[in-house]
């Protein structure tokens, strides 16, 4: 009996350690990883401007940097749980007609195709980093939410209740929010 109790206590101590690793250390690490990748990307954007390919005062440079700053500062609020509850809270809210895509294409006007292409690549990389972060920052959320979400979407598409789920649209919404927060920072 005593051995059984001691084994139970040993199991509980190990579980406590796993909880600490998973809910505290892993999340802090993942956030640091996300920010580190974005810092590297922002450095690349800076070097790109420093090489003279685009001016530091150019709107496209400012817009992309603001968006990256928004992601870096508020990365801790970018888990799948945040996305889920944001979607619920934003039901019925009027979306701003000027989206990040809109601002981005406007800001890129007049740039030569090569510069435009390089900036687009930086934006795509930023989005890939953001998607990875959303999916892995709270793995329990991804495991719980994604399978039923895909199922519901698949059923909705099958019975033609809605159009196919558009990843691009959802990523743009992430960019919109990051840019809104990043833009606020620039204005502050």
């Amino acid at each position, binding site marked *: 009996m005593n051995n059984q109790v001691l084994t139970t*206590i040993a199991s509980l101590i190990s579980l406590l350690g796993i909880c600490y690793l998973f809910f505290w250390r892993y999340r802090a690490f993942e956030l640091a990883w996300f920010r*580190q990748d974005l810092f590297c990307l922002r450095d690349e954007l800076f070097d790109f401007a420093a090489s003279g390919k685009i001016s530091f005062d150019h709107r496209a440079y400012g817009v992309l940097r603001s968006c990256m700053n928004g992601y870096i500062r508020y990365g801790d609020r970018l888990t799948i749980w945040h996305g889920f509850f944001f979607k619920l809270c934003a039901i019925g809210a009027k979306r701003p007609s000027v989206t990040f895509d809109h*601002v981005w294409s406007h800001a890129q006007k007049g740039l030569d195709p090569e510069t435009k292409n390089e900036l687009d690549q930086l934006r795509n990389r930023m989005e890939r980093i953001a998607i990875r972060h959303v999916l892995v920052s709270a793995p329990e959320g991804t495991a719980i939410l994604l399978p039923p979400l895909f199922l519901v979407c698949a059923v909705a598409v099958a019975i033609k209740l809605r159009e196919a789920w558009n990843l691009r649209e959802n990523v743009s919404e992430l960019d919109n929010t990051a840019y809104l927060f990043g833009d606020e920072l620039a204005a502050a």
Partner: protein
Amino acid sequence: MAKSNAELRAENTLLRRANTSIGITSIFNNLIRYGALVLIFRYGYLSIDSLSGKTTLASVGINFLANITVSQAVAYILGAGGLTYGAVEHGLRKKTIKRFKNRIPKLEAKIDSGRTSSRLNAKGETHPRDQA
């Protein structure tokens, strides 16, 4: 590009809703985290209770945790998790050093042209030619 009143109002609504959702998520996250801790402490309490003879180890959860194989498996998972965490955290630190090592010397050299270097490698480790 000046924003219209309606545009600013829509942005404001979205930011406020985002803040509400952040509050809800924060509460939810804390419920998951601390809920797990409460559950563990509850089982700890029950097992100590059974040690004093007040209750038995009849509970399904406690019986499961009292299994030596389960206990060892959980300990291995903790050990492997800890080691993996240490290794990846170390890798991230190296990556951060590498990022600074490339930029700081360039910027400092602009202010101090005679700036000397410790001559560590890009990851902040002893340079191979300096190794004993």
